[in-house]
């Protein structure tokens, strides 16, 4: 067992069986209802491109939640980073600076969150809610509430979405890279191990000599960095920076993480589960799009599917647990 490729093992693990089953069911539904469109390469790529932005955010959110916190500001920070990176001033320095700018803004906002929580002792919910509100406000101010187009000379950013390698857009590779790096960080490094400790029992972590505050701060910075990367992806997809980007992403990201089996109380969870949770959501959306359900039935169906998916997973857990 121990010898097999870790990622495969992760997917195959019992605890993810329910999620994989839910995914499989959705795929079957897709194949049955839209045999012609669903299983095409272009549709699959479209699903992954759609998942990429929020997927990157989900990786960061997984760390924060395992570490016992919560980050409500992800969508707003992404919006702020996209706006900052697409101001005329930033655009004049070219695409590389724009990308760096997005990441720095994201990380900076994350650091502020982390500082408020770790050293200012604010509850994560409140601190990141304040950040959500403030970052959106700042993004609106910077952009004067307008959508900022990426200029032609910086189209290298847009290429991330349009250029393909082996038929797959670059941004899907970026998404995959973030997931893999996140997995390694969580499972193969002391940082990851400490994240579990800090979330599982902060007092025990403290008494074991871990600098809980610093670690907490780093977790939010990491989440912010992911938002910065996500900002680059959303800029690539929409060719714009806007204060409206990422509305309600916080709910989607947290929901994906939690469907993926991470405890909201911290100390337990996996990146793979989060990504599977996210793919379930994305697949549901895709199926609705393909089937052109254009009524509020979708919402009702979505609610039911979420419940069923989690019940599937629960049942599975139950069999395993005492």
């Amino acid at each position, binding site marked *: 067992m121990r010898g097999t490729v870790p990622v495969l093992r992760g997917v195959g693990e019992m605890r993810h069986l329910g999620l994989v089953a839910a995914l499989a069911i959705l795929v079957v539904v897709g194949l049955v209802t839209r045999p012609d469109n669903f299983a095409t390469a272009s549709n699959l790529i479209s699903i992954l491109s759609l998942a990429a932005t929020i997927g990157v955010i989900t990786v960061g959110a997984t760390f924060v939640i395992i570490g016992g916190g919560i980050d409500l500001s992800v969508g707003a920070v992404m919006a702020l980073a996209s706006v900052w990176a697409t101001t005329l001033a930033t655009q004049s320095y070219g695409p590389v600076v724009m990308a760096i700018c997005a990441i720095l803004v994201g990380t900076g906002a994350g650091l502020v969150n982390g500082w408020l929580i770790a050293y200012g002792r604010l509850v994560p919910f409140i601190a990141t809610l304040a950040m959500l509100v403030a970052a959106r406000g700042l993004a609106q101010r910077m952009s004067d509430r307008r959508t900022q187009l990426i200029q032609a000379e910086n189209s290298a950013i847009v290429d991330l979405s349009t250029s393909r390698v082996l038929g797959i857009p670059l941004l899907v590779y970026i998404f995959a890279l973030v997931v893999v790096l996140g997995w390694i960080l969580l499972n193969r490094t002391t940082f990851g191990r400490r994240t579990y400790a800090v979330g599982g029992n902060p007092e025990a972590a403290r008494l074991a000599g871990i600098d809980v505050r610093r670690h907490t701060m780093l977790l939010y910075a990491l989440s912010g960095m992911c938002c910065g990367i996500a900002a680059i992806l959303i800029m690539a997809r929409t060719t714009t920076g806007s204060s409206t980007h990422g509305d309600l992403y916080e709910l989607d990201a947290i929901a994906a993480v939690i469907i993926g089996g991470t405890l909201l109380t911290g*100390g337990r969870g996996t990146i793979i589960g989060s990504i599977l949770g996210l793919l379930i959501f994305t697949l549901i959306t895709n199926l609705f799009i393909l089937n052109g359900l254009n009524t509020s039935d979708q919402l009702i169906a979505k609610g039911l599917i979420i419940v069923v998916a989690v019940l599937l997973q629960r049942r599975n857990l139950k069999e395993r647990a005492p």
Partner: protein
Amino acid sequence: MQGIVKQFPGVRALDGVDLDVRAGEVHCLLGQNGAGKSTLIKVLAGAHQPDEGTILFEGKEVRPTSPIDAIRLGFATIYQELDLVDGLSVAENIFLGHEHARFGFTNRAAANRAASEVLARLGHPEIRPSTEVGRLSPAAKQVVSMARALSREARLIIMDEPSAALAHDEVANLFRIIRELTAQGVAVVYISHRLEEIREIGDRVTVLKDGRTVAVGLAARDTPTSRIVSLMTGRNVEYVFPPRGGRELGDEVLRVENLSARGVFSDVSFSVRAGEIVGLAGLVGSGRSEILEAVYGARPASGRVLLSGKQVRRGVVGTVRHGMGLAPEERKAQALLLDQSVTANITLGTLPEFSKFGWLDRKRERAEARRLSEALDIRPPDPERPIRTLSGGNQQKAVLARWLLGGRRLLLLDEPTRGVDVGARAELYAVIHDLAKQGIGVLLVSSEVPEVLGLADRVLVLREGRVIHEGDAAGLDEHRVLDMIMNGKAA
């Protein structure tokens, strides 16, 4: 109880256990860590459902499917792990589930009055019923737990290691109450790893080993210790301390000067040399744990703490880096990551030892964890199990194992043998001795005076946060120490 079987994934915790308890007796349940004692009484209390077996109560078969059922039957339970709600007051905790209420409206005054009565009966009139439980010391919490069990009109009271968090005089109090209860015909099931307690209070003894009953209804007072121990462990263990001496005392590793924290302890000064074991004796609440935490940098205090002559930066991160380690007293709240594996729990304090540039060497980590769990006989011997599924005593061993790694210079051990069985205890003593032999300084807190005297080279006696006596352990006996901590006479 007959033929009780309880299966957990991968473990058959109970494998056909029989237990029979008579009205008015104190029935003791003995067994090694992980033998299944807590599981058995949880079955009785309705917290676990047995896979097989029957329970007869007053001649009728009963099947408590939930704690409510068991409570209705007249079973009251004091669990091994504290089961209090921190946010509620003492009185509210005591009467949780059977509040003084009319039409759902609580009657606080009545509840507080009743709580005061029960607490007074337990010899703790100083615990105020309106205090929030979260602010109490572990010992006081244990008292509240007992008060809760007593507040029910119980016919059978089950106590799972009630004395683990209590000191000498409190245990005496507890025994007085048990005697009152049994005189009224209440049956008591009593679990403890302290054999001398069994002798004092028990009527009959049932011994469990690996989830099976190996002896039923032994007379508690007359059965020889060696027989009980060999029934429990399957071998002969001598419940003795390793011989003192044979150790070179090195340089001073720790010097504490005028350490004070308002309202808890004041003006504490002492030192620990390499290879020396220094014991802190004192009553519950005398501030021993706080002193340890202050030395460790986990709690603010004034005064100086010097490690090998150098003042260390305040805060745990610094002290750990300088080679200190603390095994705290409340394992669940302060030490364990319940959801993580035994391995992850053991290596938590010394992660840098297992990593290069932050990259974990998981193979080495697992190997070390395996080595330690064998050395300390942690059962089941699978370091990949979540530590949540280990029995209390085995969890305690894992807490100790954490600091046996990575070249510590000074270990602070707070109640290191709480809940550890006789056999493992002897092993732990040997381990502590070995550590000292390797030149590690040890600062030990224990509520069992014989343990302090038996292990330590030097003893500090504390009373109300002040050191009232300091001297060689060899020159002290249990009686004198008790006298000092009770009466404050620095003899």
